[in-house]
């Protein structure tokens, strides 16, 4: 039977990478002083599984490498070995090495044998270093080969057959072993004759039918090796008395006699030839030689990049359920359509309503499948923080919350690099050196926190540190020096913080190799904006900073409110709408250079006249009292959009404007409406910026003309 093992490789790689992640986080969390047994067991189990799988699927190099790791971990688990920081570093390095090996195999590339050998040497040295009596895989197999050859005394050619005295212990049947099964197996090897001995059978009233009281004398003729015999009895060697005696050419082959049976368990005593009783050593598993052969040597590795996704079966079931409902609705509608008359209009309407609901639910379920916990990104950070803080001589702990928050797979893939940059940034520029922290009256150990949570239709990911915070004066001075802002220009705190996102802006006195590798914060912001998100900074000098990334949950669909401005329809993301009101003229203040503002409760909000900002004609409402003001919020800024009217709420499929046209400030994308026309989707923060620019221009214009 040939089975294509390659079909299991993908699953093997996936679970191995998960195992490696588990090992990594387990190793990072190991508390040297008080070792949690379950923690080390989990690490061991992961290594063990990878070893088992890689051996089975023919990745011998991986199996050998993991074996050494496993041996080390096994000793730690048993308490035979002290867990040292050094050993953990070596194991962490080995985890990386193993990951690279697996990735190389997965993508069909050569394994970097030099690197592997280096790590293996480090592991071996660690193993030997503490004088533990464990051997590597190579030694193991050598031992086993030795052991096996030692037991085979008689040259196979001289052997004509074997005589076997087999008397099972009473409990043999309760191990699930069956003598008949073993005899059948023996019979396949050669010509078998069986003699049963009933002597051990007790009187009927004492007989326990679940026990075995029989014993056998077996003789098998043929060119059979000792190992083949041992193989058959391998499982029961502890559960029986067994004596195996070779029948050589010189020894006449006789039918087993009753005498031999009687003299059991020492039939060898009568043998004229020097034979060897079977001291089958438990620690030398007989079948092991075969199994060291790789299963499949040249299995072509699956090309990397075929991305797959693991989905809860519950989600799939839900989806199937939805489709079922949809089919029912569809058949109901076609029934209505077949014999349609006007008095069935109600039925049609309710059918359509059902169809709409099911379509929406189906869509949500499908979207849900692409949702993965943010943990997929977060898991790499404990290691990153561990390594970098050690490198920089800083003391830093990492806390993570909301790891289970779900977000679209694409977002997961694209947010990883920006997040790494932000965390590195916090490590490098945020957290101070231990002595500086102590001098500032802060705890010596700094803290970086990663938070993820849902807010409205967004996911928010925060990178917080309790470091030195952003130095506003320094930032401003630097910006003026670089000519990015005017000397006397009024500038808000938020705008100062935003300066760090300007290309080529860096205040670090010296660039370290941690951050500042040319990829700046400008790239971070650009990446986040590509995802339809934005980044906010909060910072208190001396107290720390918070970088909050806001991202849409999914990149494909948006809950929108359509609004009418003249002949145009625009879509406002529903999550950014706070309320819609009618603003009486007398509530409005006109401030020179700042446009119009109106007072909403305790807050003054700027009014953005949509028809002015987008130059729309045929506007129905030009006075505030004729239209509506929609209060929206984006990136912490609130404003009122002055529009003609609110239309319907609907889900819209987002089409990229950038890909099909170009980037337009104030617009995040476009969509196609039910009637086939195109509507632009508004980008609220962009709109606010746009209106500020226009107001500033206007002010400048007035200042110049005045």
């Amino acid at each position, binding site marked *: *039977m040939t*089975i294509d*093992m390659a*079909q*299991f*490789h993908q*699953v*093997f790689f996936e*679970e191995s990478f998960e195992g490696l992640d588990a090992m990594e986080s387990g190793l990072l969390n190991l508390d040297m002083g008080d070792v949690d047994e379950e923690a080390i067991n*989990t690490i*061991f*189990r992961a290594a*063990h*599984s990878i*070893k*088992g*799988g*890689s*051996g*089975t*699927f*023919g990745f011998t190099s991986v*199996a050998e490498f993991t*074996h050494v790791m*496993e*041996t080390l971990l*096994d000793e730690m688990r048993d308490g035979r070995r002290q867990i040292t920081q050094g050993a953990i570093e070596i194991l962490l390095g080995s985890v990386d090495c193993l990951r690279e090996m697996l990735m190389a195999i997965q993508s069909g590339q050569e394994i970097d044998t030099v690197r592997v050998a280096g790590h293996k040497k480090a592991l071996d040295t660690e193993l030997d270093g503490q004088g533990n009596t464990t051997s590597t895989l190579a030694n*193991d*197999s050598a031992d*086993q080969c030795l052991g096996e050859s030692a037991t085979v005394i008689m040259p196979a050619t001289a052997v004509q057959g074997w005589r076997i005295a087999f008397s099972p212990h009473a409990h043999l*049947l*309760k*191990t*699930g*072993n*069956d003598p008949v*099964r073993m005899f*059948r*197996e023996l019979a396949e090897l050669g010509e078998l004759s069986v003699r049963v001995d009933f002597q051990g059978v007790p009187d009927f009233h004492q007989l326990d039918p*679940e026990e075995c009281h029989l014993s056998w004398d077996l003789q098998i003729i043929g060119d059979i090796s000792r190992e083949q015999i041992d193989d058959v009895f*391998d*499982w029961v060697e*502890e*559960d029986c008395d067994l004596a195996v005696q070779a029948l050589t050419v010189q020894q006449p082959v006789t039918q087993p006699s009753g005498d031999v049976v009687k003299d059991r368990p020492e039939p060898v005593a009568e043998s004229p030839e020097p034979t060897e009783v079977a001291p089958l050593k*438990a*620690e030398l*598993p007989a*079948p*092991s030689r*075969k*199994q*060291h052969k790789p*299963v*499949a040597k040249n299995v072509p590795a699956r090309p990397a990049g075929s991305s797959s996704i693991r989905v809860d079966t519950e989600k799939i079931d839900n989806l199937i359920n939805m489709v079922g409902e949809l089919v029912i609705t569809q058949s109901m509608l076609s029934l209505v359509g077949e014999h349609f008359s006007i008095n069935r209009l109600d039925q049609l309407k309710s059918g359509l309503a059902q169809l709409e609901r099911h379509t929406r639910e189906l869509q949500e379920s499908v979207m849900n499948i692409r949702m993965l916990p943010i943990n997929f990104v977060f898991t790499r950070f404990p290691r990153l923080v561990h390594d970098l803080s050690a490198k920089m001589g800083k003391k830093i702990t990492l806390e993570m919350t909301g790891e289970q928050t779900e977000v679209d797979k694409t977002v997961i893939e694209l947010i990883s690099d920006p997040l790494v940059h932000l965390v590195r940034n916090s490590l490098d520029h945020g957290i101070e050196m231990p002595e500086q922290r102590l001098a500032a009256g802060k705890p010596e150990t700094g803290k970086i926190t990663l938070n993820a949570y849902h807010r409205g239709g967004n996911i928010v990911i925060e990178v917080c540190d309790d470091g030195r915070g952003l130095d506003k004066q320094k930032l401003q001075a630097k910006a003026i020096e670089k000519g990015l802002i005017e000397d006397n220009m009024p500038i808000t705190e938020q705008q100062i913080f935003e300066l760090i996102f300007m290309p080529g802006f860096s205040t670090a006195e010296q660039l370290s190799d941690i951050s500042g590798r040319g990829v700046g914060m400008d790239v971070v912001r650009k990446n986040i904006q590509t995802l339809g998100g934005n980044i906010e900074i909060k910072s208190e000098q001396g107290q720390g900073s918070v970088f909050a990334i806001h991202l849409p949950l999914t990149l494909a669909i948006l809950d929108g409110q359509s609004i009418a401005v003249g002949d145009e329809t625009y879509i406002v993301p529903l999550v950014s709408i706070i309320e819609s009101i009618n603003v009486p003229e007398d509530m409005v203040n006109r401030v020179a250079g700042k446009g119009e503002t109106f007072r909403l409760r305790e807050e003054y909000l700027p009014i953005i006249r949509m028809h002015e900002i987008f130059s729309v004609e045929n506007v129905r409402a030009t006075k505030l009292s004729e239209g509506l003001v929609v209060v929206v919020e984006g990136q912490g800024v609130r404003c009122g959009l002055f529009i003609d009217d609110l239309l319907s709420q609907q889900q819209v499929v987002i089409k990229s404007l950038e890909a099909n046209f170009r980037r337009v400030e104030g617009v995040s994308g476009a969509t196609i409406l039910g009637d086939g026309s195109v509507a632009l989707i508004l980008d609220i923060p962009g709109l606010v910026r746009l209106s500020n620019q226009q107001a500033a221009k206007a002010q400048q214009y007035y200042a110049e003309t005045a």
Partner: protein
Amino acid sequence: MASILAVDDSASMRQMVAFTLKGAGYDVVEAVDGEDALSKAKSGKFDLVVTDVNMPRKDGITLIKELRQLGDYKFTPMLMLTTESGTDKKMQGKAAGATGWIVKPFNPDQLLKTINKVLG
């Protein structure tokens, strides 16, 4: 055809075992760890149990020990999937009532051969 309960926390190994055995015509039920296996074993009757040893929640040896206590599984063959380094595991398994073992790494042919031997 005989029914087999295949227990392994590693999805790739479990799938490989299940796929091989199904291909040979056996009825196979998969379980992801000892707990899962125990409840599945109780709700049906299997002719053979093939289990990994090192698993979360309940390991293979405990599983075998507990299954042996059940009347339905007193004489049922139960095989452990072990690695060559697990010799003491084999002995522990035997003590718990395991019938035998299949040493990892193994290929589908070796697996089938061993299984056929037990169920033959």
